[in-house]
C-alpha cells in the first residue's frame, strides 16, 4: 500500500488536471471570446469620404483634417497647465474637468481632452508636445464645405445614433453617417466601404503589431466622388437674392430634369454643422421655429399654387376639347359663377377674352368658366374631377416626384372621393369647387412641383424626374431618372406658351423681361391663412412666379415662391427673371433690379402677425 500512495496520487492528479483542461479548453468556449477581446483589436480602416462637385466641376465639399488632443491618463506627468491653456485656448476649469473625466473613463485608454483644434493651434502645439508627457494628437477627417451656401441640398454628416445602429449593422458607435441632403442620399457612394484591420494588443492595451500578418484584414473600398446637377453660381446667386425673405426657388433644366438650383430661404452656412460647435449651432437652427432654416421650402413647403395653375387648367381643357384657343368668355370685373356667388377679377368691365388674353391677363372669369366646362364634360362631376385629377397627376402633382433627396411632400390634388367625403354624395358641383380653377381651394403644391410642371410645359408635354445627381466618379447615371409623358398632346402647348410669353411681354410680369431672351412666365398671388394662437388668420398673399426661357429650346425652367410677398410681380417675378438672366447670360445687367431684390426685406411682414398688435395685410 505504502508503495502505491505517490503513484496513485500522481494518477489521480493527472486525471484531475486533464479533466480540468477539458473543461477549460473544450467545454467552455467563453475563454476563446475573452482571449479575443483581450488580445485582438479590430479597428476599422476608413476610406476618405467622397468629394462633391457641381455641374461645372467646381468643388463644393471636400474633407479637412481636424486634430484632437488626446491623453492617456496613466502616462501624464504634472505639466504647466497655464501655458497649455494659453496654447489651446481652453479654460483651466474645463481642462481640469476633462482631465478628471478622462481619468474616470480609463487610466490606460486614450480620451479626448480638447477636440478639433485649428490647424494653426496644431502647428504651434506640435512643436511643444514634448513638454506634455502622456498627451498626443490624433488626426481625424471632417467635412470641409468650400462654399457658404447650398446647405439644404448638400446636407450634413453626423455621428450615428442608436436608431441607425439598429437598422444598419454596417455602422458602429462613433462613426459618421450622412444625415441630410446629398450626404444622406448618396451615403453609400460617398462613404465607400470601410476595411478592417486586426491588431495584436498586449496587456497594457498597447498595439504590438499586426495580427497574423494581416491575413484577416479587409481592404477598404475607395469612396466615390459625386458631380451634382447644381450650378454653384446660380445656387449662390439665388440665395443671395433671397436674403431677408422666406420662400423657395427651384430651377430645372427641362431637357434633362437636372436641378440647377434649389434655394430655400432662410438657410444657413453648411460649415456651421461641422466641427467643435456643431451641436450648439444645430440646436440654434432647430429651435428657430418661425424662420425654420432647416426646413427646405423648395421641397417641403405646401402652398396653394395660385394663378400659374391656370396654365394647367388651360391645357386640360384643350386636351378634353371643351375649349379651343378661340373660345371667349365675358368678364365684368368678375362674374357670378353661381347664384349670388361672385368671383372678382381685375379685368375691365365688358372685357371679352380669348385663351391667350385669358392667360396673360390672368382672367379669373375665363378659367372659372373653363374649369366648369372640364368638370361638366362628363355626366357627373365625379367623373369630371377624376379626369382632371389624372391629367394633373401626369404632371407629377399630388405625389412625390421621385427626386434624390430624402425630404419632400406629396402636395394635394383633390378627387371625387375627397369631395364626397367632405360634402354629402352629390352635394357638390363644379361651382362648389370653383377655386381650383385659379389655383386656390384645395390644391396644394410644393415649389419643386411648380418648377417641374413648368419644365413639362417648356418641353411641350413631358418631363424628366428632377434630380441632383449628375455622375458618380465620372459615370453618368441618366437611365435612373426617366422621361415621363404628360397626358396632354404636344400641339396644345403652343397657345399656352404663347400666353405665357405675353405675360412677360405685355401682361402681369413685364418686369421679368430680359433683353435678348424670350421669357415665358406666369405670375401668381395666393391667399393664405395661418393659425395664430388658435385663430385662423389671413396673412399677406404669397408672391409666385413660374417661368422658362428661352421660349424655343428652353434651357431653364424656374419656380419662385416668396411667402407673404404681396403679389407675383412684386418679388417672385423679378427674382426669377434675374435667375434666368444669370443662368443664360452668365451675368446680370439689371443691377438696379438686383439691388432692389437684395436689399428688399420682408422681415417686418413676417413679424407682424406675432407682434401681438392688430395688423393689415396686402397694404
Amino acid at each position, binding site marked *: 500500500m*505504502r*508503495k502505491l*500512495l*505517490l*503513484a496513485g*496520487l*500522481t*494518477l489521480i*492528479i*493527472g486525471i*484531475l*488536471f*486533464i479533466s*480540468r*483542461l*477539458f473543461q*477549460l*479548453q*473544450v467545454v*467552455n468556449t*467563453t*475563454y*476563446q471570446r*475573452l*482571449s*479575443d477581446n*483581450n*488580445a*485582438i483589436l479590430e479597428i476599422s480602416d476608413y476610406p476618405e469620404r467622397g468629394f462633391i462637385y457641381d455641374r461645372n466641376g467646381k468643388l463644393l465639399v471636400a474633407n479637412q483634417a481636424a486634430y484632437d488632443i488626446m491623453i492617456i491618463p496613466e502616462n501624464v506627468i504634472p505639466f504647466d497647465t497655464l501655458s497649455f491653456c494659453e496654447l489651446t485656448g481652453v479654460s483651466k476649469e474645463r481642462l481640469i474637468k476633462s482631465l478628471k473625466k478622462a481619468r474616470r473613463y480609463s487610466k490606460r485608454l486614450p480620451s479626448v481632452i480638447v477636440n478639433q483644434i485649428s490647424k494653426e493651434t496644431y502647428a504651434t502645439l506640435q512643436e511643444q508636445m514634448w513638454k506634455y508627457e502622456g498627451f498626443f494628437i490624433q488626426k481625424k477627417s471632417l467635412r470641409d464645405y468650400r462654399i457658404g451656401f447650398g446647405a439644404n441640398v448638400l446636407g450634413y454628416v453626423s455621428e450615428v445614433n442608436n436608431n441607425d445602429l439598429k437598422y444598419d449593422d454596417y455602422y458602429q458607435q462613433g462613426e459618421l453617417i450622412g444625415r441630410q441632403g446629398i450626404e444622406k442620399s448618396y451615403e453609400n457612394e460617398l462613404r465607400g466601404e470601410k476595411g478592417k484591420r486586426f491588431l*495584436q*494588443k*498586449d*496587456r497594457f492595451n498597447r498595439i*504590438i503589431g499586426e*495580427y*497574423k500578418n494581416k491575413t484577416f484584414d479587409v481592404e477598404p473600398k475607395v469612396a466615390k466622388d459625386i458631380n451634382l446637377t447644381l450650378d454653384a453660381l446660380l445656387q449662390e446667386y439665388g440665395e443671395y437674392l433671397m436674403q431677408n425673405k422666406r420662400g423657395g426657388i427651384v430651377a430645372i433644366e427641362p431637357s434633362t430634369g437636372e436641378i440647377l438650383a434649389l434655394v430655400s430661404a432662410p438657410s444657413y452656412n453648411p460649415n456651421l454643422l461641422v466641427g467643435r460647435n456643431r451641436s450648439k449651432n444645430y440646436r440654434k437652427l432647430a429651435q428657430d421655429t418661425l424662420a425654420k432654416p432647416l426646413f427646405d421650402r423648395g421641397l417641403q413647403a405646401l402652398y396653394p399654387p395660385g394663378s400659374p395653375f391656370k396654365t394647367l387648367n388651360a391645357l386640360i381643357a384643350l386636351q378634353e376639347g371643351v375649349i379651343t384657343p378661340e373660345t371667349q368668355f365675358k368678364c365684368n370685373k368678375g362674374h357670378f359663377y353661381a347664384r349670388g356667388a361672385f368671383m372678382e377679377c381685375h379685368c375691365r368691365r365688358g372685357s371679352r377674352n380669348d385663351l391667350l388674353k385669358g392667360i396673360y391677363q390672368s382672367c379669373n372669369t375665363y378659367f372659372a368658366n373653363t374649369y366648369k366646362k372640364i368638370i361638366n364634360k362628363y355626366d357627373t362631376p365625379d367623373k369630371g374631377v377624376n379626369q382632371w385629377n389624372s391629367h394633373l397627376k401626369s404632371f407629377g402633382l399630388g405625389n412625390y416626384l421621385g427626386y434624390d433627396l430624402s425630404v419632400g411632400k406629396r402636395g394635394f390634388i383633390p378627387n371625387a372621393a375627397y369631395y364626397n367625403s367632405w360634402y354629402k354624395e352629390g352635394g357638390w358641383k363644379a361651382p362648389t369647387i370653383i377655386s381650383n380653377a385659379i389655383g386656390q381651394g384645395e390644391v396644394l403644391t410644393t415649389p419643386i412641383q411648380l418648377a417641374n410642371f413648368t419644365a413639362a410645359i417648356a418641353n411641350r408635354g413631358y418631363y424628366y424626374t428632377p434630380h441632383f445627381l449628375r455622375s458618380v466618379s465620372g459615370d453618368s447615371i441618366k437611365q435612373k431618372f426617366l422621361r415621363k409623358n404628360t397626358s396632354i398632346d404636344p400641339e396644345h402647348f403652343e397657345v399656352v406658351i404663347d400666353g405665357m410669353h405675353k405675360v412677360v411681354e405685355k401682361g402681369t410680369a413685364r418686369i421679368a423681361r430680359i433683353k435678348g431672351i424670350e421669357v415665358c412666365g406666369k405670375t401668381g398671388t395666393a391667399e393664405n391663412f395661418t393659425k395664430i394662437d388658435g385663430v385662423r388668420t389671413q396673412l399677406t398673399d404669397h408672391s409666385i412666379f413660374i417661368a422658362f426661357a428661352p421660349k424655343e429650346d428652353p434651357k431653364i425652367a424656374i419656380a419662385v415662391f416668396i411667402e407673404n410677398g404681396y403679389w407675383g410681380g412684386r418679388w417672385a417675378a423679378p427674382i426669377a427673371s434675374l435667375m434666368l438672366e444669370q443662368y443664360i447670360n452668365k451675368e446680370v445687367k439689371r443691377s438696379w433690379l438686383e439691388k432692389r431684390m437684395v436689399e428688399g426685406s420682408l422681415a417686418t411682414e413676417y413679424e407682424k402677425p406675432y407682434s401681438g398688435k392688430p395688423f393689415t395685410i396686402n397694404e
Partner: protein
Amino acid sequence: MKNPIRGNRLQSMNKSLYRLDWITIILYLALVSFGLMNIYSTNFNENSSIFNFKIPVGKQFLFFMVSLFVGVLILITKAKFFERFASIFYLLTILSLVGLFLFGKNISGATSWYSFGSIGLQPSEFAKVATALAVAKYLSEIQVNVKKLKSLLQVGLIIALPMILIILQPDPGTALVFGAFFFVLFREGLNSIFLLLLFGLIFFFILTLVTPIPFVFASIITLLIALYFFSKKLNKKASLLPYLALIVVSCSYVYSVDYIFNNIFEQRHRDRFNIILGKEVDTQGIGYNINQSKIAIGSGGWEGKGFLQGTQTKGRFVPEQHTDYIFSTIGEEWGFYGSAAVILVFCFLIIRILYRAENLKNNFARIYGHGLAAILFLHFFINIGMSLGLVPTIGIPLPFISYGGSSLLGFSCLLFIFLNLDANRLNE
C-alpha cells in the same frame, strides 16, 4: 585475465550504459526541448534566437548544454560516490544557503541568488538534490527506523534545516517543496497516523476557510462524540478521554488556522486562497494572473493556436509566463492535445521513476528515487494546478520546462543521479 580490474570496469560501464533507462532520458530531452520552444514563444521577437545568450531562451539553452555536460559527468561517476559524499554535498549546500545572507543578491524581495554577471545561481534548487541525497543516505542506514521518534526527529532536522534557511530568504514556495519528503518517510514506514493527520490538517484548513468557525466546531464535536458512542458499542471499555483530547486539539487547530489566516497572513496571502476557493472574484488585482492564465489556456481549444501564434502569449497578458506560468503558453499554443500530453508525460515519468526505484535492491537508491519522484510530483501538482486555477498561487517552476537555469540544472542533476543509481543496480 591480464588486467581483471580494468576489464571488469569497462565491462560494467558497458553494461550500465546498456541498462541506462533510455526512455526516461528521451522523456527528459523531450520535456526540455519543448520547454525551450515555449520559452522562445513567450519572449518571441525579431532578435529571438537560442544562441542569443542575453535573452531567456538563449540562457536556458546554455544551461541545457551545461546540464547535459553535467549529466554525462554524473553518469560516468561511480554510483557509490553519491552515497559516500551525500553528507558533504548536504553540508556544502547548507553553507551556500547560509552564505546567501552575506553575499546573496536580492531579486524582487527574496535573497535567493548568487550573481555572476548576467547569470545567477539559486542554491535552493541544488538544496533539493543535496537533501534528497542526505535523506536517502540517512534512511538507508541500518540502525535508522522512521517508526522510532529519535530517527524521525533526526531526519526531520535534515529536511527542516534547508527549509528554514529558504523560508528566511524568504522563498516559502521553494521551502514548501521540501514537504515532498513526507512521501519518502511514509514509504519508509512512517506511522499512518501522520498521513491521516496530514489529510486532516489540509481538510480542516480548507473547511475553516470556506465555512464559519462555529459550524466547523459543531461538526467536529458531533463527529467525534458519534465516533465515541460507536466505539463504545464495539468495546464497552472505550474511554472518552482520547476523544475529548481530539476535540480539543482539532478545535484549537481550527481556531489557530482561522486566527493565523485572518490576523497573521497578509492580505495578498489571503487573496490567493480566497480566489481559489471561489470566495472572491477579482480579475484585475491579485486574481489577474490566474484569470489571464485560465483565459490563455481556455482559448487554446482542442488543437491550440499554433507555435508562436498565441495571442495571449504575444500580448504578455500572463505575468511570469516563461517561468511559473509556462503551462499557460503550452495550453494556448498547443491546445488540449499538447497540454494533456505534457501532463501524461509527467505522470508517466513520475510513475516510471517510482516503479524503477521499487525494483532497486539498494535502499539508498530506492529512497533517493522516491525523493526524486516526490519532488517532481509536488512541482508538477502545484505549478500546473496553479496555472489551471486549482491551487493557490505559489511561485515554483515546472520541472524541465520553466525558464530558470538553476532549476533546470538542479532537476537535471536530480534525475541523472537517479539514472546512474538505476543503471548500476547490479554493480553492488
